[in-house]
C-alpha cells in the first residue's frame, strides 16, 4: 500500500492539513501536496482507466508527463476535465473525479474491452469499424461514443476570468531548475532584460531531490542564494507557475501562468497568457525519465523511478512498502537509496546491464540493497495494484527465474531531454548514442528574421544530464544568448556542480530482449492511448515505415502525451521492427502547447460583451426604448422587429410588412456600407469593379450595381450614386463595407496604382433612414424643406436639401418595391431626423420596421440578398441578373472568369420563385430531390431553397431557390424533403411575386 512516511517531505507542511474529495470520498492531505501525492498518501493508487481497454491505471509520474492521472476538477461552472493530478496543487475543498470509467472506477464495464484486446489491434480505428455497414448505427457508433474522448466537456459557463499579458524581453529563459536559474543569472548580469518562467510552484527543478553539491553547498542552498541574486536584479523578472507553452516564429513565445488554480478563493484572473516577444530564448526544460517496456508495466504501482523518489523526498509519501527497482542506468540507484533512507523496503535493484552501474550502485550496495545484474522483469502481475514480479534474464525470452511479491515497481529506461520547445519553431535533433536519446543539434537551431539562431537549449534539455555538466552548459548558454541579444557577457565564475562517476547506460527497448509475443502484447508504450509494443510491431509489418504515419495509425503519443513518455520507446520499437537505426526513423513533430492550456487563457478577456466591438447606429437607443428584438449583422445590432402590446415577433413582422405596403414604414438603414470613390479615374475604376457601366452614370442619378470577385462569383451589390464628375458614393451591404473597401484598395494599390483615385469608408459618418410606402411622399412633404415630387426627384435620382430643417441627401431608391426615399444625414443628426420623421409620420400611420420585414418585402419583389441567394459559388448569370452586366465593357473583375466553360454551363442552377402547393413555408436550405441516387448512395438533387418566408402580402409561403434549368420549367412541381421527414411540394414560378411591372415604386 502507499502511505505517508515520517521525517520526509520537503515541500509539505504537516501543520496545515487540507481536506479534499476524490470520487465523493473525503480525504486529507497537507499544504504543499499535489493532488497526486495526496492521493498516494491515502493509498489511492488507482486513478483512472485507459482509453481503449479501460484498464486500471495508476500514477506513473510526478510532473507534466503524467499520462494516467487525469481527473475532472471542480464542479458546475468551475468544472474542468483532463487536469493532471501531478501538476494540481492541493487546496482545501478541492473536488476531483476520475475519468473514463463506467459505471465506477473500481468496477468498469468497458474493461471487458481488454478481454477482446485482439479485436482492437494497432490501427483498430481503421479496421474494426468498417464492416458490416449496418452495424454502424446500433453497434459501432454507440460503442465509440461510450468509450471515446478523455473526460467530459463542462456543461456550465466558465465562472472564472482570464487575461493576456504582452511582454517584451531580450531573453526568455524557460524552466526554473538549476540550469534555468544559472542561465538567467549569467544573462541577467549583462544587463539584458530577462524573463525566467517555471511551470511548477518551486524553483530548482530536480536538483534538491537528486542531491550532489554546487560550489560546496547543498543544491537547496545554492538555489536559495541564486534566487536572491536574481530577485535583486531589476532587469530580471521571475514567474513561477508559468509554463513555456510554445516557441513560435521570430521570437514569439507563449507563457501560461496559473494564478489561482492552487488558491481558487483568490481574487483576480485564474490564468494568464503571456504573449512574449523575445530577442533570444533559452530552453532549460530539463529531461523526462523513460519507462521500460515489460509485460504489465501498466499495472498500478509501476512508476518512474524518479517519480517514486520525488514522492518520498518532496511529499513524504511511500508509493509502496516493498519496492523493486528496475533500470538500465545509474540514476535509478538514487531512487533505491532515497527509498531505503525513507525506511521503505527495497527488495531488489534489477539492473539490465550485466556489469551493473558505477559509484551509485556501490553506495546502494553499501546500504545493504540487493542488486541483481543482467536481470529484467518478465512480467508484473496484479489487478488494481502490483502484487508480484516475475524476474528473468534480460538476454532471453522471459522464462521466470524467480517470483517476488511486492507492491510497487520503480522503473528507469534512461532520460530524454525535453526538446519540445527547442523543436516547435524548427530546431533539429541529433541522436546521442551514449545516452540513447535525441538532443538538440546546436548547428540547426531555430532561426529568426535575421537568419540567426534565436533558441539555445541549456542543461539537461541540451542533453547534459549530470549536475556539473548541466551548470556549466547553462552558464555558457546564458552568456552566449545575452551576447546574441546584443549584451556584453561579464567574466563571472561558472558554478561547480559535483560530478558522480556513472557507468554508461545500455539501451533497453524491450524487456527481456527477446520477449515472447504474449509478453510483448502486455508491454505498454503509451499508457494513455493503450499502445503496446506489439501494436507498433504490427504497424511495421503492415508497411508503416514513417514514424508520423505509425503515430496516427496506432495513436502512439497522441492526445495529451505529445511525445513525452511514449516517444523514444515507441520509435525505438518501430526502428527495431523496421531494422533501421533510430536516427534514420526520426521523431514525430513536436507541436505546441507543451502541455494543454485552457481555452479560457487563449480567449483571455475576449468573451461576452468584449468578445468583439458592438456597433450601434445613432438611432440605437430609440430602437431599444421601443422594444426592438435584435439581429446581429456583422458587428452591428439591427432591429429585427418591434413587437407591440404582447405581439409575437412573427406577428409583429407581419404587421410591419402590411403597414409599410398599405401606409408607410420607416427603417434604420444606417448600417449600409457607404464608400466614397473620388478622382479623375474614379469612373474608369468603378467600371472595372462593377459588372455594369458606372462611368456613364449622370451626376444626380443612382444605379444598382453588382460586384464580382476575379473568380467571377458575386460578392456584393448596392446602389451607386454619382455625386459629381469625379465623385461616386458606393453603397454596399451591411456586412460588406469593410471588405469591399479593402477590395477596392487592394486593386488600387496593387494593380492600377498609377490611377488617380482615392477611397474613403464613410459608413459611420452618415445615418440613413428609409421612408417606405404609398404615403412616404406625404410624410416628407409634411416635414417640408425640399421638393420631393416625382417630377423633381424621380425614381433612381438623388438630391441635396433640407427636411424639417436638417440638411439631408435624399435618394429615391427602393428595396421593397414601394415608393421609397432613403435619407442620408450626418450621423450626429440621425436621431433628430428620426424623431422628426416619427412625429410627422404619426398622422399617416407610420411605423418602424425591422430587418425581417425588409427581407420579406425584398423577397416578395424577387430582389436577391447577398448571403442568401449567394454563397460564394453563385455568379450573377445564375440569378437572372444578366441585365446588370455590361455587354459593352471590355473588362471588369470576374468577366474572364465568367467565360469559363463551367460558368457558361447550361446545367448551372438558376434562380426561380417557389410557391408551395399548400400555402405553407418551405424549410430554409431544403433541397429539391431528383430521381435516382449518386455514387455515394445519396438521393440526387436538382435545386435548393435560398430564401423562404411567410408573405403577409400574398397570405402564403413564398421562396426563392436555385433550380436546374429552373427558368425553363415554370409551373413544374418539385419535392423538398425536410429534416423532419415531411415532403413539401412547391411549384416553380417567377421570382417576382408582387407588383411585377414595378408600378408602385415608380410613382
Amino acid at each position: 500500500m502507499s502511505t505517508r512516511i515520517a521525517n520526509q517531505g520537503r515541500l509539505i507542511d504537516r501543520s496545515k492539513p487540507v481536506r479534499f474529495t476524490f470520487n465523493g470520498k473525503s480525504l486529507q492531505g497537507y499544504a504543499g501536496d499535489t493532488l497526486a501525492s495526496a492521493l498516494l498518501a491515502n493509498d489511492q493508487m488507482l486513478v483512472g482507466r485507459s482509453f481503449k481497454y479501460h484498464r486500471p491505471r495508476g500514477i506513473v509520474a510526478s510532473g507534466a508527463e503524467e499520462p494516467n492521472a487525469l481527473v475532472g476538477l471542480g464542479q458546475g461552472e468551475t468544472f474542468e476535465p483532463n487536469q493532471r493530478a501531478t501538476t494540481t496543487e492541493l487546496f482545501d475543498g478541492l473536488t476531483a473525479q476520475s475519468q473514463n470509467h463506467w459505471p465506477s472506477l473500481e468496477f468498469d464495464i468497458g474493461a471487458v474491452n481488454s478481454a477482446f484486446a485482439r479485436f482492437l489491434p494497432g490501427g483498430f480505428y481503421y479496421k474494426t469499424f468498417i464492416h458490416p455497414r449496418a452495424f454502424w448505427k446500433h453497434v459501432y457508433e454507440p460503442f465509440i461514443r461510450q468509450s471515446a474522448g478523455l473526460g467530459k466537456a463542462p456543461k456550465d459557463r466558465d465562472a472564472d476570468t482570464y487575461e493576456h499579458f504582452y511582454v517584451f524581453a531580450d531573453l526568455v529563459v524557460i524552466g526554473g531548475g538549476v540550469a534555468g536559474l544559472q542561465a538567467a543569472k549569467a544573462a541577467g548580469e549583462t544587463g539584458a532584460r530577462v524573463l525566467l518562467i517555471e511551470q511548477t510552484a518551486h524553483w530548482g527543478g530536480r536538483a534538491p531531490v537528486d542531491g550532489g553539491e554546487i560550489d560546496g553547498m547543498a543544491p537547496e542552498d545554492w538555489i536559495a542564494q541564486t534566487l536572491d541574486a536574481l530577485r535583486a536584479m531589476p532587469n530580471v523578472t521571475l514567474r513561477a507557475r508559468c509554463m513555456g507553452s510554445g516557441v513560435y516564429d521570430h521570437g514569439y513565445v507563449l507563457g501560461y501562468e496559473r494564478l489561482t488554480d492552487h488558491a481558487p478563493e483568490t481574487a483576480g484572473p485564474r490564468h494568464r497568457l503571456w504573449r512574449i516577444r523575445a530577442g533570444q530564448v533559452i530552453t532549460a526544460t530539463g529531461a523526462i525519465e523513460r519507462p521500460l517496456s515489460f509485460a504489465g508495466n501498466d499495472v498500478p504501482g509501476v512508476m518512474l523511478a524518479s517519480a517514486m523518489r520525488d514522492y518520498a523526498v518532496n511529499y513524504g509519501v511511500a508509493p509502496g512498502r516493498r519496492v523493486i527497482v528496475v533500470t538500465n542506468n545509474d540514476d535509478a540507484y538514487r531512487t533505491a537509496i532515497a527509498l531505503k533512507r525513507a525506511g521503505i523496503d527495497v527488495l531488489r535493484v534489477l539492473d539490465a546491464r550485466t556489469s551493473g552501474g558505477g559509484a551509485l550502485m556501490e553506495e546502494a550496495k553499501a546500504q545493504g540493497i540487493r542488486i541483481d545484474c543482467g536481470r529484467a522483469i518478465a512480467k508484473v502481475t496484479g489487478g488494481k495494484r502490483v502484487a508480484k514480479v516475475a524476474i528473468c534474464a534480460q538476454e532471453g525470452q522471459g522464462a521466470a527465474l524467480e517470483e517476488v511479491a511486492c507492491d510497487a515497481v520503480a522503473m528507469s529506461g534512461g532520460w530524454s531531454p525535453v526538446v519540445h520547445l527547442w523543436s516547435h519553431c524548427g530546431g533539429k535533433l541529433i541522436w546521442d548514442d551514449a545516452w540513447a536519446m535525441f538532443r538538440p543539434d546546436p548547428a540547426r537551431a531555430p532561426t529568426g528574421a535575421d537568419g540567426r539562431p534565436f533558441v539555445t537549449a541549456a542543461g539537461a534539455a541540451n542533453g547534459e544530464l549530470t549536475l556539473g555538466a548541466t551548470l556549466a552548459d547553462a552558464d555558457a548558454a546564458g552568456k552566449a544568448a545575452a551576447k546574441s541579444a546584443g549584451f556584453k557577457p561579464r567574466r563571472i565564475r561558472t558554478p561547480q556542480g559535483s560530478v558522480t562517476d556513472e557507468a554508461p547506460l545500455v539501451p533497453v527497448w524491450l524487456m527481456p530482449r527477446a520477449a515472447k509475443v504474449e509478453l510483448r502484447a502486455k508491454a505498454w508504450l503509451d499508457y494513455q492511448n493503450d499502445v503496446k509494443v506489439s501494436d507498433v510491431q504490427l504497424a511495421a509489418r503492415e508497411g508503416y515505415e514513417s514514424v508520423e504515419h505509425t503515430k496516427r495509425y496506432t495513436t502512439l503519443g497522441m492526445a495529451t502525451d505529445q511525445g513525452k513518455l511514449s516517444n523514444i520507446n515507441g520509435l525505438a520499437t518501430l526502428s527495431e521492427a523496421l531494422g533501421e537505426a533510430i536516427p534514420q526513423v526520426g521523431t514525430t513533430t513536436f507541436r505546441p502547447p507543451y502541455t494543454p492550456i485552457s481555452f479560457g487563457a487563449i480567449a483571455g478577456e475576449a468573451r461576452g460583451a468584449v468578445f468583439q466591438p458592438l456597433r450601434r447606429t445613432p438611432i440605437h437607443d430609440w430602437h431599444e426604448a421601443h422594444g426592438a428584438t435584435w439581429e446581429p449583422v456583422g458587428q452591428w445590432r439591427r432591429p429585427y422587429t418591434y413587437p407591440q402590446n404582447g405581439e409575437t415577433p412573427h406577428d409583429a413582422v407581419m404587421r410591419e410588412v402590411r403597414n409599410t405596403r398599405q401606409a408607410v414604414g420607416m427603417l434604420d438603414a444606417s448600417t449600409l456600407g457607404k464608400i466614397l470613390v473620388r478622382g479623375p479615374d474614379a469612373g474608369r475604376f468603378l467600371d472595372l469593379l462593377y459588372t455594369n457601366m458606372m462611368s456613364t452614370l449622370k451626376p444626380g442619378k443612382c444605379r444598382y450595381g453588382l460586384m464580382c470577385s476575379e473568380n467571377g462569383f458575386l460578392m456584393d451589390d448596392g446602389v451607386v450614386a454619382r455625386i459629381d464628375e469625379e465623385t461616386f458614393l458606393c453603397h454596399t451591404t451591411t456586412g460588406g463595407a469593410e471588405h469591399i473597401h479593402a477590395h477596392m484598395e487592394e486593386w488600387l494599390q496593387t494593380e492600377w496604382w498609377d490611377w488617380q483615385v482615392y477611397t474613403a469608408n464613410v459608413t459611420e459618418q452618415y445615418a440613413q433612414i428609409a421612408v417606405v410606402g404609398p404615403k412616404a411622399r406625404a410624410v416628407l412633404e409634411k416635414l417640408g424643406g425640399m421638393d420631393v415630387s416625382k417630377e423633381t426627384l424621380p425614381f433612381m435620382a438623388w438630391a441635396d436639401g433640407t427636411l424639417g430643417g436638417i440638411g439631408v441627401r435624399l435618394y429615391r431608391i427602393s428595396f421593397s418595391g414601394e415608393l421609397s426615399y432613403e435619407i442620408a444625414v450626418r450621423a450626429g443628426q440621425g436621431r433628430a431626423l428620426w424623431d422628426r420623421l416619427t412625429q410627422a409620420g404619426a398622422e399617416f400611420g407610420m411605423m418602424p420596421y425591422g430587418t425581417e420585414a425588409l427581407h420579406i418585402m425584398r423577397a416578395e419583389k424577387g430582389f436577391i440578398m447577398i448571403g442568401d441567394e449567394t454563397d460564394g459559388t453563385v455568379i450573377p448569370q445564375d440569378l437572372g441578373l444578366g441585365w446588370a452586366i455590361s455587354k459593352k465593357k471590355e473588362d471588369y473583375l470576374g468577366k474572364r472568369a465568367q467565360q469559363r466553360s463551367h460558368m457558361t454551363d447550361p446545367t448551372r442552377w438558376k434562380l426561380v420563385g417557389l410557391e408551395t402547393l399548400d400555402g405553407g413555408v418551405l424549410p430554409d436550405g431544403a433541397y429539391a430531390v431528383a430521381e435516382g441516387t449518386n455514387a455515394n448512395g445519396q438521393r440526387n438533387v436538382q435545386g435548393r431553397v435560398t430564401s423562404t418566408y411567410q408573405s403577409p402580402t400574398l397570405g402564403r409561403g413564398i421562396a426563392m431557390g436555385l433550380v436546374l434549368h429552373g427558368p425553363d420549367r415554370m409551373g413544374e412541381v418539385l419535392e423538398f424533403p425536410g429534416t423532419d421527414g415531411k415532403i413539401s411540394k412547391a411549384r416553380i414560378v417567377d421570382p417576382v411575386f408582387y407588383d411585377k411591372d414595378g408600378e408602385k415604386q415608380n410613382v
Partner: protein
Amino acid sequence: MLILTCPYCGVDAEETELAPGGEAHLKRFGPGASDEEFRDYLFARENPKGVHFERWRHAHGCGKWFHAARCTMTLEVFGTYPAQTTKPPKAIREAITAKRPGWTWREFE
C-alpha cells in the same frame, strides 16, 4: 507570428497587424487570355521550400500593401518593399543572393 517591417510607415509590424495576400508579382490576365493563362493567374502558385515573395497589407496600421521576400524554411526575412512594382527591386534581389547564392523564383534570380 512573423514580424515584418512596413516599407511605408516604417513600423515593425507583428503578424496580427498584417493581412496576408498570397503570392506577389502575379500578372493579371483578363478577357482575351487563354484558359491556361487565366487558370495559372488565378490558381497556379509557387510553394517553395526557401525563397518566396509574398503580399502583405499593413491592415491594422497604415493600410498599405507591400511585398516581403523571405525564406519559408528558416523564416529569414530578406526585405520588404512597396507593392507598386512588377518585380523585386535590385537591392532585395542582391540581399537574397548574399544569403542564398543561386536562388531562383519564377522568372527572377
